[in-house]
């Protein structure tokens, strides 16, 4: 189980690095990002394969705290740069992913650092994958209480983000089908399954793109309902066959992000310093970080956790 927590933490750190690399001076470092993506893949593999049903919570519902964006805890959350995108992106992701009631527990456990949330998590033991929204709610509530701090949630949010918003454990996934929509399958943006329209304010080109991200965004009722419906609808089923696909798709998407950033360099004739800027822009697909996050497959489908929060 420690592996799972560790893996989760590593995933979140890795994502933060990838994101940061896009804005750092000197351009994207291909080597470093390649290594980070390998770590990400390893961590994800461990995370998905670690047979640890004990992570899933049961329990009474409690009012979850909407996670305002906070400058993260240095340890695991992606840096402030992440601030804007997550919740809206997550909303987009939610319907595509399987319900993960258990998941909420995970990100907080390591961060809380104390035994309590971990125990709560473990105590749940044997929770069935096909958990319902209530349980998810409960999970959040309990963890929030255990963690005792609302800022754990945003941490958890950010930390929990995974490149494909796919459910934590293969076996846990109340599978719907080949929603191999572990959106990590190498699908271009267009193919994204019907996301709730609310989704990401940025996605819709909403005005506030640059600005707030304040956790659970305003237009709530729709996203609230949608995820819950999905939660209930999902039949329990194993989802292992989705694994393989996610695997390569995930890495492929990550590489394509770097790749697309470089394709600009390659197309251009050697133009000295211009190359880098041009590559960044063409790869970025959008002027501002917020939109980049939304558009890229990797970041788009990232965080079912925060959607869970939104749902409550």
């Amino acid at each position: 189980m420690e592996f799972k927590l560790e893996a989760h933490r590593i995933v979140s750190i890795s994502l933060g690095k990838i994101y940061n690399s896009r804005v750092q001076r000197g351009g994207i470092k291909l080597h470093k990002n390649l290594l980070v993506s390998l770590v990400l893949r390893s961590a994800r593999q461990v995370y998905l394969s670690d047979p640890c049903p004990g992570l899933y919570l049961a329990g009474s519902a409690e009012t979850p705290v909407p996670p305002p964006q906070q400058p993260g805890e240095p340890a695991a959350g992606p840096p402030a740069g992440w601030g804007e995108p997550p919740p809206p992106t997550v909303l987009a992701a939610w319907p595509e992913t399987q319900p993960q009631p258990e998941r909420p527990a995970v990100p907080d456990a390591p961060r809380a650092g104390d035994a309590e949330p971990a125990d709560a998590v473990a105590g749940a033991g044997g929770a069935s994958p096909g958990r319902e929204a209530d349980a998810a709610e409960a999970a959040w509530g309990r963890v929030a209480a255990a963690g005792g701090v609302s800022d754990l949630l945003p941490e958890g949010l950010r930390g929990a983000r995974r490149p494909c918003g796919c459910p934590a454990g293969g076996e846990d996934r109340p599978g719907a089908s080949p929603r191999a929509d572990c959106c990590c399958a190498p699908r271009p943006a267009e193919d994204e399954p019907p996301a709730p329209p609310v989704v990401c304010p940025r996605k819709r080109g909403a005005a506030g793109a640059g600005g707030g991200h304040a956790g659970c965004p305003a237009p709530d009722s729709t996203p609230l309902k949608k995820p819950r419906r999905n939660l209930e609808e999902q039949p329990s089923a194993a989802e292992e066959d989705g694994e393989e696909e996610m695997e390569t798709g995930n890495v492929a998407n990550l590489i394509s992000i770097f790749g697309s950033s470089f394709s600009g360099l390659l197309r251009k004739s050697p133009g000295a310093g211009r190359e880098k800027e041009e590559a960044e822009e063409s790869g970025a697909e959008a002027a501002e970080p917020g939109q980049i996050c939304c558009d890229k497959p990797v970041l788009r489908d990232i965080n079912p956790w925060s959607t869970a929060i939104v749902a409550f």
Partner: protein
Amino acid sequence: LTCNAAHFLLSTNDKTIKLWKISERDKRAEGYNLKDEDGRLRDPFRITALRVPILKPMDLMVEASPRRIFANAHTYHINSISVNSDHETYLSADDLRINLWHLEITDRSFNIVDIKPANMEELTEVITAAEFHPHQCNVLVYSSSKGTVGLCDMRSSALCDRHSKFFEEPEDPSSRSFFSEIISSISDVKFSHSGRYMMTRDYLSVKVWDLNMESRPVETHQVHEYLRSKLCSLYENDCIFDKFECCWNGSDSAVMTGSYNNFFRMFDRNTRRDVTLEASRESSKPRASLKPRKVCAGGKRKKDEISVDSLDFNKKILHTAWHPVDNVIAVAATNNLYIFQDKAN
């Protein structure tokens, strides 16, 4: 490269390579006719007599002037340059390609290695370092992020995509971790002066390879094995991506590489002894000997030992060099360059 008492130096940043001429000047001419001592031009009509300028000694001055600029040949970040034994050509390597240049020709280069996949999504490794063989001008090696080294013979084909030799040590499954791939990425590769061996540096160790044996290194020296349990923290603070260099001494009997806390390590290949030294002001008074240091990996810390947790990871020695003949070494700490010399026995 030396020529007429001037030295040439090839340097590079991420994208552009420059050839510099470095010369020392310890004399200057005095007594010009057309300008006075301050350098101001004199009015030619006011000159009534001519004199021959005289060379007078002056404080030694080192001048560096760029002589050639080799630009626009690399799409990705350059990680290595290596002058060939013919002293006419050199290679430059970036993440995916290696180019061959002639020192006199700046407007074109030849691509000799290209590992860029047709589809960047399939990228699995990058080139991390490359070097020409010290004697065979047709042989070069390049290391990869996967911990492998390829040796290429330029005579075999124009594009050396297929190695003549491929050096890879099988991974030890018992030490597998999330970071196995990162720590196996080779940060530097150096031929021995003899040309018979080569050395690779990965995050935790230095390996010596016999060019005649591709299956595994002949020696492995642990640089800072105590960091193996800290990999996750080192990943978080990015230290795990630090690229340490390594070097041979003139006789190939010892190798040296850097570490953290301004420590650097030397390994004697014959006696199998190693030593940890520190490059710091405090420990480097003139004519004082460097005291060997020791890192305490765990358990009870002895006096004079340093515990792993008190190592300063911001003080890293990435670059070291050993004089090709004498026992003089140069060690680059963050803001200071230290030059140490072996005491004559």
